């Protein structure tokens, strides 16, 4: 299936696009990867991201298990970013973990992209593997969704590209040797081969911004949270794969 679609992308055939759209037109980034990388993701014993999931399990046991069972965590990642009443705005899963740290564990928040935060996020999100991303339905999220939708089509950077230009208009076609995926956040946190490490969706978004020579939004900023929220709405119904491997 993935090879088929890549060849269609190269040919740029309208017929292929029409055929694809007749079925589910959305595809996870896993479909755009080489067979070797797909195999890496599918094998839990070989997928390096499981080192982080394992670390997260230990941290969860030490800090979170006083309030939460592991079973409680199933489904949580499908509905984040979510509204936080006290802050009065949406928060991502990693922000939520940090709010728990401050409010309930009486510990300092964990630094963005720190091993501790990535491990916990990997472990929690992994509990939702196989479940579909939930469409954000809370009416309080509407404004953030609008912001996210706006940012997604906004041109930025010296190269003056928007997310939509690559990931909607040119998904499936090639950019400097790689196939452009559709940008669905189905497997985060991911083990990115380029990073040789696990990283968050926000790290990936910031890297895309650097890629078009734009100043990246800060970690945990309202902009990145809004983008995450919008991407989840766009990917609603797609299955979570965490922990995914991506090139």
């Amino acid at each position, binding site marked *: 299936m993935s090879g088929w679609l890549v060849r269609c992308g190269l040919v740029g055939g309208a017929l292929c696009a029409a055929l694809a759209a007749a079925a589910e037109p959305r595809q996870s980034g896993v479909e755009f990867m080489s067979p070797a990388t797909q195999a890496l993701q599918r094998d*839990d*014993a*070989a997928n*390096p991201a*499981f*080192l982080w999931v394992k*670390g997260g399990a230990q941290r969860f046991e030490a800090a979170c298990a006083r309030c939460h069972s592991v079973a409680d965590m199933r489904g949580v990642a499908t509905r984040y970013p979510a509204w936080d009443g006290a802050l009065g705005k949406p928060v991502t899963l990693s922000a939520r973990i940090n709010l728990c740290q401050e409010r309930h564990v009486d510990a300092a928040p964990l630094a963005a992209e720190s091993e501790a935060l990535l491990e916990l996020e990997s472990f929690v999100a992994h509990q939702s593997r196989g479940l579909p991303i939930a469409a954000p339905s809370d009416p309080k999220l509407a404004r953030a969704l609008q912001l996210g939708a706006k940012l997604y089509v906004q041109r930025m950077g010296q190269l003056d590209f928007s997310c939509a230009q690559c990931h909607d208009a040119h998904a499936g076609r090639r950019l400097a040797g790689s196939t452009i995926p559709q940008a669905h956040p189905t497997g985060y946190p991911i083990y990115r081969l380029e990073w040789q490490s696990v990283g968050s969706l926000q790290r990936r978004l910031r890297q895309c911004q650097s890629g078009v020579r734009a100043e990246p939004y800060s970690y945990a900023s309202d902009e990145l949270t809004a983008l995450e929220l919008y991407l989840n709405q766009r990917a609603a119904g797609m299955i979570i794969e965490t922990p995914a491997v991506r090139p």
Partner: protein
Amino acid sequence: MARAILTVPAKARVGEVVEVRALIQHPMETGYRSDAAGQRLPSDLVRRVECRFDGELVLAGELHAAIAANPYLAFALRVPHNGTLSVTWQGDRGFTHTESARIDVT
């Protein structure tokens, strides 16, 4: 604390050949990268990995900088009897870690 995962069946028949997969978290820093300030990051590698079953050698490996980060190894073990499979990684700066798993024969 190094994270490592050893995947091996918990049970096997005597003489059965089983698959062993070993994964350890380690950057395998090559010594060729520089940080944002342009300073060369010193090399930091896992140099040796040894897998033994109740002390007897299954496989040993000498690793170099060309081994990818978070080194992965997959190989076959012929299970002689009940026992413990141990994989030990050793590397620069005194790095050492052992991960073990028990295999019972049926």
